C-alpha cells in the first residue's frame, strides 16, 4: 500500500510539473511584460553563480585531464588528452556540472522563495487579486534558467578545458600548443545532420533542457509547499533532489538521442 501511495504521489507530482511547463509555454508571449523580473532572475541565476561555475569548472577540467592522462600515458597516447578533455567536457561534464550547480544553488532558492510565499499567504493573495502567478512568478524563472544554463555552460566548458591544459602541460608534459590544437579541432567536428560542431551544440542543447528542468521542478516544489518552515525545508530538499535525478535521467536519454544518429 505504501508503495502504491508513493507511486500515486510520484505520478501526481510529475503531472503537476508537466502541466506547469505547459502553462509556461502558453505564456511565452508575456515575456516582454516581465522583463524587469526576467533581468532580476538572470542576475540571480547567472551572475551570482559565476564564481562557483569558474571554480568548480576549473577543478573538474583538471581532475578529468589528470585521471584520463594517467591512463593515456600508459599507452603513450597522452598527446590525445586535448581531444578527450574537450569532447568530454563539451558533450557531458560541462552541461552536467552546470546543471547540478544550478539545481543546488538556484533551484533551492527558487523553491524556498516560492515556498515561503505559499506559507505566508502571498500566493493566495495573488490569486485573490486575479493575478496570474504562473506568468508573474514562474515564467521569468524558467526563462532565465533556460537562457543562463547554456551561457554558464560555455563558461564552464572554457575554464574546464583550460584547467585540463594546465594539467596537460604541468603533469603530462603535453605542450599547450598541441593540447589546444587537438582540443579545438575535436570541437570543430560537424554533425551530418546540422553541419554544426556536434559536441558543442549537443552540450548547449542539453544545458538548455537542464535549465528548464531545474526551474520547473523547483518552482513546482515551491508552489506546493504547505506547513510552515518545515514545509519550506522539505520543499527545498525535494526541489534539489528531484532536479538532480531528473537531470541525470534526461542526460541519458538526450545523449542516446543525439549520438545514436
Amino acid at each position, binding site marked *: 500500500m505504501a508503495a502504491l501511495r508513493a507511486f500515486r504521489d510520484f505520478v501526481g507530482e510529475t503531472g503537476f510539473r508537466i502541466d506547469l511547463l505547459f502553462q509556461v509555454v502558453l505564456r511565452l508571449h508575456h515575456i516582454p511584460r516581465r522583463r524587469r523580473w526576467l533581468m532580476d532572475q538572470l542576475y540571480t541565476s547567472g551572475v551570482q553563480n559565476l564564481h562557483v561555475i569558474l571554480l568548480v569548472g576549473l577543478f573538474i577540467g583538471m581532475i578529468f585531464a589528470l585521471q584520463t592522462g594517467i591512463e593515456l600515458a600508459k599507452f603513450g597516447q597522452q598527446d590525445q588528452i586535448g581531444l578527450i578533455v574537450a569532447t568530454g567536457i563539451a558533450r557531458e561534464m560541462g552541461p552536467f556540472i552546470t546543471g547540478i550547480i544550478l539545481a543546488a544553488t538556484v533551484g533551492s532558492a527558487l523553491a524556498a522563495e516560492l515556498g515561503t510565499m505559499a506559507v505566508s499567504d502571498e500566493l*493566495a493573495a495573488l490569486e*485573490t*487579486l486575479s493575478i496570474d502567478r504562473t506568468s508573474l512568478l514562474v515564467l521569468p524563472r524558467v526563462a532565465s534558467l533556460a537562457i543562463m544554463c547554456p551561457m554558464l555552460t560555455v563558461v564552464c566548458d572554457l575554464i574546464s578545458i583550460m584547467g585540463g591544459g594546465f594539467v596537460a602541460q604541468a603533469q603530462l608534459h603535453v605542450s599547450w600548443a598541441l593540447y589546444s590544437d587537438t582540443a579545438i579541432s575535436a570541437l570543430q567536428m560537424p554533425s551530418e545532420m546540422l553541419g554544426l560542431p556536434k559536441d558543442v551544440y549537443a552540450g548547449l542543447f542539453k544545458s538548455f533542457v537542464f535549465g528548464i528542468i531545474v526551474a520547473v521542478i523547483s518552482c513546482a516544489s515551491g508552489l506546493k509547499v504547505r506547513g510552515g518552515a518545515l514545509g519550506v525545508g522539505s520543499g527545498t530538499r525535494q526541489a534539489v533532489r528531484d532536479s538532480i535525478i531528473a537531470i541525470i535521467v534526461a542526460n541519458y536519454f538526450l545523449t542516446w538521442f543525439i549520438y545514436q544518429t
Partner: protein
Amino acid sequence: MDSNDTIISFEDVHKSFGSQHILRGLSFEVKRGTTLGLMGGSGTGKSVALRHIIGLLKQDSGSVQVDGNEMATITTKELHDLRLRMGYVFQSGALINWLTVAENLALPLQENSDLDAEEIERRVREKLEMVYIPDAGEKFPSEISGGMKKRVALARALITDPEIILYDEPNAGLDPQISASINKLIRELSDKLGMTGLLVEHRIGCLKVIADEVIFMYEGQALVHEPVGTFFKPTHPRLAAFLGGAEE
C-alpha cells in the same frame, strides 16, 4: 441600492480536510451594503468560510453564492472577473515582500487594467491617503510596522474599488491602540464606500465597531445570527459561555 438584496449566501455547506469535517451545514446570508461578523472558537471554520467566498476553497456539498454566482461551478473567467469586484485582507497582510508598498498596490491594476502608469500612481496615492499612510509608498514591507502592514493590506484590497471586502482577523497581532485605529478606519471606509463586508474576528470590541450583524459559529455551523446590538446580550447558553471568555 436595495439593502435587503442578498449578495452572499451559504446554504448547507460542508467542507472537510481529510478526516477533519470543518463546515457541517453552514448556512447564512449577507445583505448588500452591510458588514457581517463571524465569531467563534478556533477550528470552527470561520476563515474556511471566508476562503470559499473568494474561491480559494470549494465546498464538498451545499451552495455558496456570491452575487448570483455559484462558486462550485463558476468558470475561470467568471471567477477572475468576480475577484476584481472583491477585496481580501489577510490575517498576516500577505504583502509581497520583494515589492515596495506602492508596487504592492499598483500590481493588481498593472495586471488587470489598461490604465497608464500615471493613473495607476494616482490611484495608489489616493488609497494610501485613504488609509492615512501617504508617505509609505517607497518602503518595503519589512521596513514597516504591523499596524502599517494592515493598513497597506487594506489599501491593496481597496485598489480595485471592490463591492465586497473580506477581512480575516484584521486585528491579529496588533496592540489595543492600533487595533482601535484599524477598526475605526474599516468602519469609516465601509460607510464611505458602501461596501459589503464579511469579517472574521475574535475581539468583541472590533465586532461592535465594524459589524452590523454577527454570527456565532460552533462546530462548523451558524448557531446564532443576530444584529450586533443584541448579539452581545446573549440568550443562547453556548454563546454566553463563549463571550464570557472572549477578548474585548
